């Protein structure tokens, strides 16, 4: 099993519903976020191009954060999701420095926090991650890449896509449809 997420940059309007849904579902402390919106503007007026992306942890196949964690608190879980065990985390910050996407942050309680793909609280119960389920433009897809009929496999077969900084060698599992 290999969980992955795809975001359609042609459909995303950057409403930040995913951000708020995540904060509510996962009880993210005020002032922090596990997912966020990036707007990229290319060119000069009037030749402008806009790309909007809903971003989060890329749950990389080759995660530098898991590699550099001195205690094993950062680990691979079901479906290749990258999780942090708060009781094993010493808050040294190595994983935060190791993430090229800056997807991790220090939780005010001391341990490191990040996107979990809502693995334990939603996905294992058969639900979609909070961000995916609330998206008003239905631009987000989640599922198992090993299952050729999952909606994420289907959409990645049909559409052109990219990942972020593939040259960093992390093999990210968060895809962007372009």
């Amino acid at each position, binding site marked *: 099993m290999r969980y992955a997420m795809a975001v359609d940059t042609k459909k995303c309007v*950057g409403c*930040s519903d995913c*951000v708020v849904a995540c904060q509510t579902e996962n009880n993210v402390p005020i*002032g*922090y*976020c596990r*997912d*966020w*919106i*990036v*707007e*990229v*503007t*290319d*060119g*000069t007026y009037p030749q402008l191009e806009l790309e909007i992306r809903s971003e989060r942890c890329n749950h990389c196949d080759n995660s*530098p954060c898991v*590699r*550099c*964690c*001195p*205690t*094993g*608190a950062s680990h691979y879980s079901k479906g290749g999701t990258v999780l942090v065990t*708060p*009781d*094993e*985390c*010493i*808050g*040294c*910050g*190595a994983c*935060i*420095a*190791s*993430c*090229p*996407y*800056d997807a*991790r*942050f*220090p939780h*005010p*309680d*001391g*341990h*490191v926090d990040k996107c979990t793909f809502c693995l334990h609280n939603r996905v294992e119960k058969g639900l979609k991650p909070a961000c995916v389920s609330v998206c008003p433009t239905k631009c987000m897809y989640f599922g198992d890449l090993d299952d050729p009929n999952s909606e994420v496999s289907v959409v990645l077969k049909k559409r052109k896509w990219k990942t*972020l*900084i593939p*040259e*960093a*060698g992390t093999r990210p599992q968060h895809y962007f449809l372009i």
Partner: protein
Amino acid sequence: MREELIVSGRMNHLVDPNLHIWHWHIPLYLFLGGLAAGILFFASLYTILGKENEYRTAVKIAPFITPFILIIGLIALFLDLNHKLYFWRLYTTIRLESPMSWGAWTLMVVTPISFIWCALNIRELFPRWKWPHSLLDTAEAFFRKNIRTLSWILLIFSLILGVYTGILFSAFNARPLWNTSILGPLFLASGLSTGAAVIIFMSKSHRERMVFARIDLMLIGIEIFLIVHMFMGFLASTQVHIDAASLFLGGPYTTPFWLFVVTLGLIIPAVLEFLELRGFRVPHLIAPTLVIIGGLIFRFIIAYAGQESRWLY
């Protein structure tokens, strides 16, 4: 023109707008760790070579400061942790992929040996020293009998400690400035150089000072060589590495790095040591002081600049 904005207002503490997860603790610790590694390296080296009495300061006196600086370094590391009560988790596992893990274990080897080393030489400071319990006399006799083995262990682990201070940074592929394997030998050379500087600082023997001035001069040469190669490597690499190098080549760290680290911390002490070796009368405390301060500033600049360098996407 290309503009990239995070519009949902991501402002995660210590991560945005620029990563700043590591403050003064880590560079201070890296400096102290390198310094202790340098002093202990020379102490064990000259013990193995059988020159304890020739280089008395290096082998018997200077190591007395290492337990203190290692403990200050460990305290700095502890203060850096955000989840302090769980620090013991470091010592419930060994993860060779994580430099922080094997570095923590290296400290667990080097710190006790630095205490043993001081205990073995305690009579240099207090000639009438007597252990309060006969068990400690037995322990002393044991370590004195096995001093060569102890020296070899210390020699190897002090080198690991010195390299580790650089590898800790270079293992982070996400920060292009750190992601160069040259940082390992560069921090080791710098640690050995600051160690030699402390020995020059503390030594009362002119001959010992001259020997360590020569060693320090050689180490400074190696450091300058490695720094030049580091920048050549960056400039021949990808755009993110060129951007990382430009932090020092016209960017905000240009003056502090080239003035305080390279000129005042390396070139001027090298010139002073060279003149001293040539027989000129130079106040002998200036060069080691500059080397020590330069080494400290170097760790701070690399730690702070590295967190500003990043991948583009």
